[in-house]
């Protein structure tokens, strides 16, 4: 299947989902006012991608800022992957990158880690 790619802009993150490497990355800032609409193609792609069982998927989040509306969508993405892992023999790892010192972004990662049963790595980076 085709890869999924959206280039980042002021309030939109870069979304790079690769069906060959099984590396899915979301990066940048996300504060779209209508995230249900914005993320709809993302979910359409994911639902198709996750029909094939047994994949070993890595999801990279490298966010600098996201609004509460995006926060909901991220949880929905994680829930989809959790379901895939449980029901379709998948293996999912989340790498949650946060800039060194950004305790709020670290905390956001921890809060997702508590909410889903997926392997989580919380990884600091320096600019």
């Amino acid at each position, binding site marked *: 299947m085709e890869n999924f790619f959206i280039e980042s802009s*002021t*309030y939109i993150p870069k979304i790079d989902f690769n069906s060959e490497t099984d590396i899915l990355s979301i990066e940048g*800032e996300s*504060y*779209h*006012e*209508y*995230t*249900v609409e914005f993320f709809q193609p993302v979910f359409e792609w994911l639902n198709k991608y996750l029909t094939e069982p047994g994949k070993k998927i890595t999801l990279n989040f490298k966010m*600098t*800022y996201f*609004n*509460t*509306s995006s*926060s*909901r969508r991220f*949880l929905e993405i994680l829930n989809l992957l959790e379901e895939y892992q449980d029901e379709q023999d998948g293996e999912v790892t989340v790498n949650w990158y946060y*800039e060194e*010192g*950004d*305790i*709020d972004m670290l905390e956001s990662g921890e*809060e997702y880690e*508590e*909410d889903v049963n997926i392997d989580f790595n919380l990884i600091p980076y320096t600019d």
Partner: protein
Amino acid sequence: MENHDAFSLKTFRDELEQHAISLAFNGSFSQDTVGLIDINLKNRENAKLLTKRIFGLVVEMAQNIHHYSAKKIYSEKYCRNIGVGVLAISETKDHYVITSGNYIHQQDSEEIKSRFKELNNLGEEELKDLYKMRRKMPQRPNKPGANLGFIDMRRKSGNPVNYQIKGEDSSNPFFILSAKINKQ
């Protein structure tokens, strides 16, 4: 003299200065407006974490106005009605203060007050639990917001959020929110 001379730019400027208001916007809160505030904040010399917290409050207040203001203006560019309101960032010795104001529908007044009253009485852990619980609930039908904005404002601020509703007896009262962030 014409009546428009009653407005004094000098007085307006002096008031902005007096209250250390570094940014103020009155109008419709489109995505572009919030993007411009984002750029403005990034050009300042504040610590990154502080800037992000200020911006986080701006976004949630702006998007609250965008979706829920009782006064909206049609945008040709976005092909939809966009909420109108006012927002300001000011500074005291120890805090940054982010304030927003917009007209609301009278029937929403009680709910807004009771929600902030509840949030202001919760501690950090309770706020976190409430945020996570609410985030797991399904998206409310016909409402684009995440229903998390008020909790997020309270968490990002780290202080009780001041709220005021002016003209509660009128059909469109004016709702003012004010959240402060400690500089240290």
